[in-house]
C-alpha cells in the first residue's frame, strides 16, 4: 500500500452568524478555480482539512501546483467570495520497484 505525505489546510472563518460550512474547491490544471471544480463542504465551525484524504480518490492524481479555493456558505446556500491559494501538491507515490531478485553473495 502506497503512503503519501499529507498536507493540512487551515483557515480563519469570517464572523457571520449564519455560516454553516466552508466550501473547499481544488483545481490542478487551469491555474484558477471554477465553480464546477470538485469541492467538499467542511461543516462549521471546523476550519481545517487534511489532503488528500478529504477528497475522493483520484482528485489529486497529478504531481503539480494546485489551486485551493475557499468560500463560506450560509444557512440558505449563499456563497461568499472565493479566496484562492496555490501550493505544490505531490500526493503521487513513487512507482513500485520491479524485477526484484534475491541472490547469494
Amino acid at each position, binding site marked *: 500500500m502506497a503512503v503519501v505525505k499529507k498536507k*493540512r489546510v487551515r483557515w*480563519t472563518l469570517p464572523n457571520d452568524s449564519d455560516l454553516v460550512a466552508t466550501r473547499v474547491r481544488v483545481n490542478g490544471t487551469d491555474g484558477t478555480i471554477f465553480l464546477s471544480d470538485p469541492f467538499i463542504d467542511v461543516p462549521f465551525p471546523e476550519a481545517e482539512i487534511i489532503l488528500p484524504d478529504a477528497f475522493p480518490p483520484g482528485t489529486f492524481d497529478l504531481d503539480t501546483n494546485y489551486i*485551493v479555493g475557499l468560500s463560506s456558505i450560509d444557512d440558505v446556500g*449563499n456563497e461568499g*467570495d472565493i479566496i484562492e*491559494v496555490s501550493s505544490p501538491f505531490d500526493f503521487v507515490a513513487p512507482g513500485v520497484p520491479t524485477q526484484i531478485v534475491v541472490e547469494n553473495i
Partner: protein
Amino acid sequence: MLVLSKIKNLCFILFVLLILTDSAYAQKIYEFGAESVTVGWILGDDKAQWHEVKVEFLQGQFNLVYKVLLPAVQFTIPRPRSGKFEVSVRACRLYEAADQCSIWVKSSKSGIPEPWLIYWKPGIVTNIIIEDE
C-alpha cells in the same frame, strides 16, 4: 381605516445611500462587502410621527422591522446576515391610542423601476495556511 387611507397618500420618494463598499452595480442587484447600508427617505407630509424600515430577506423568511423616530429620515441597517433583501419604509403615527401606518413603500433607485435588491455576501475566509501534516 379612513385615517389609514389618508396616510396611504403619503408619497415617499425613497432614495438609498450606500455606505462605502465596492460599487459594482449591475442591473438591480448590488453586491457589498460592507457591514451596513443606509436607507433614506423624504417626508410625504407632516403627519408622520415615526417611520418603520423593513428588511425582507428573499431566502429563509428572515425579516426585520426597525422603528425610526423623527426627525430622522434615514436609517443605517446593520448587517444581520447574508443574502438578498429588499428594503421598505412606511410612515406611522399614534391615533386614538392605536398605531396607524401607511402602506409599505419599497426602495427604488433612479432609472430602475424594480424594487432595489441588495445582496450581502457571506464573509471571506482569511489566513489560509497549507502545511505538511
